């Protein structure tokens, strides 16, 4: 694991906000040369700290007005194959994320849909029919903000 200094943290914070920033622009902002900035970014990438880029889209304008988080509890523990459930749930295009969690639920899903009737269709036809599904709890997303996290 590598240690980050204040400049590394500033680079990560800037890229979190805008991943398309060029090393030259970023360097100017931080008082570094373009090659020095590029070397730092490469070091962060080599250490595995730099993850995927994500598009920030206005989902409503694209016709996806509803995002719902589902807590899924599997029924009949021990007789259900987690692999079967995971394979089937991963194949649903409206399901964006699947997390295996410990607690009140076994899985946490993020689902996008055009509107509530569309969500109901996905829930009834695709989620409730998954192998092993016991209880499902739904929470409709109203707002979401990503925080920079512990970057000092």
């Amino acid at each position, binding site marked *: *694991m590598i240690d*980050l200094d204040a400049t590394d943290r500033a680079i*990560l914070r800037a*890229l*979190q*906000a*805008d*991943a*398309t920033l060029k090393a030259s622009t970023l360097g100017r902002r931080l008082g570094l040369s373009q090659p020095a900035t590029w070397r730092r970014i490469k070091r962060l990438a080599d*250490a*595995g*700290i*730099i*993850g*995927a*880029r*994500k*598009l*920030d*889209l*206005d*989902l409503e*304008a*694209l016709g*996806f007005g509803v995002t719902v*988080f589902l*807590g899924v509890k599997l029924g009949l523990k021990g007789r259900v194959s987690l692999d079967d459930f*995971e394979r089937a*749930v*991963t194949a649903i*295009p*409206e*399901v*964006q*994320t*699947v*997390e*295996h*969690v*410990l*607690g*009140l639920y076994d*899985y*946490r899903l993020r689902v*996008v849909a055009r509107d509530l009737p569309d969500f109901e269709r996905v829930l009834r036809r695709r989620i409730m029919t998954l192998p092993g599904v016991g209880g499902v*709890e*739904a*929470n*409709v*997303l*109203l*707002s*979401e*903000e*990503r*925080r920079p*996290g*512990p*970057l*000092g």
Partner: protein
Amino acid sequence: MLDDTDRRILRHLQADPSQPMAHLAEAAGVPLATCYKRLDRMQAQGVLRGQHLTIDWAALGYAVEVSLRITLDKTDPRAFDAFLAAAREVPEVTEIQTFLGRVDLRLAVIAKTMAHYQRIYREKILALPHIADIEALMHVATIKNQQTVPL
């Protein structure tokens, strides 16, 4: 409004946001100039707001990730705003979501170890205002993380 070409460009862009523009234009089957023009227009319209980098916190030693599902005491009309303002001040909180449903909010909290998490939970989370109930889900594994929508 968006047409099929816009959607095709977005579909290919969201699959790999860091690809060079020439690749994107070829994959979407449009001339390079059209690709630039469409992306500029979608940015001006606010459909495409930008690109964020996600950080792999585990690579920085944050091995623990917990979802805290929180119900607020809504007898105080300022409960939401006061809670959100205070939650934003906790550095280990990486996501804040509000919901219509059984819970009001969710915080994603990261920590280096369970002992570290316990300290954050006791000293920072429990100090947040207007909490009526907290449920924790501990993250075990990410099975699917598709940052895209079915365009």
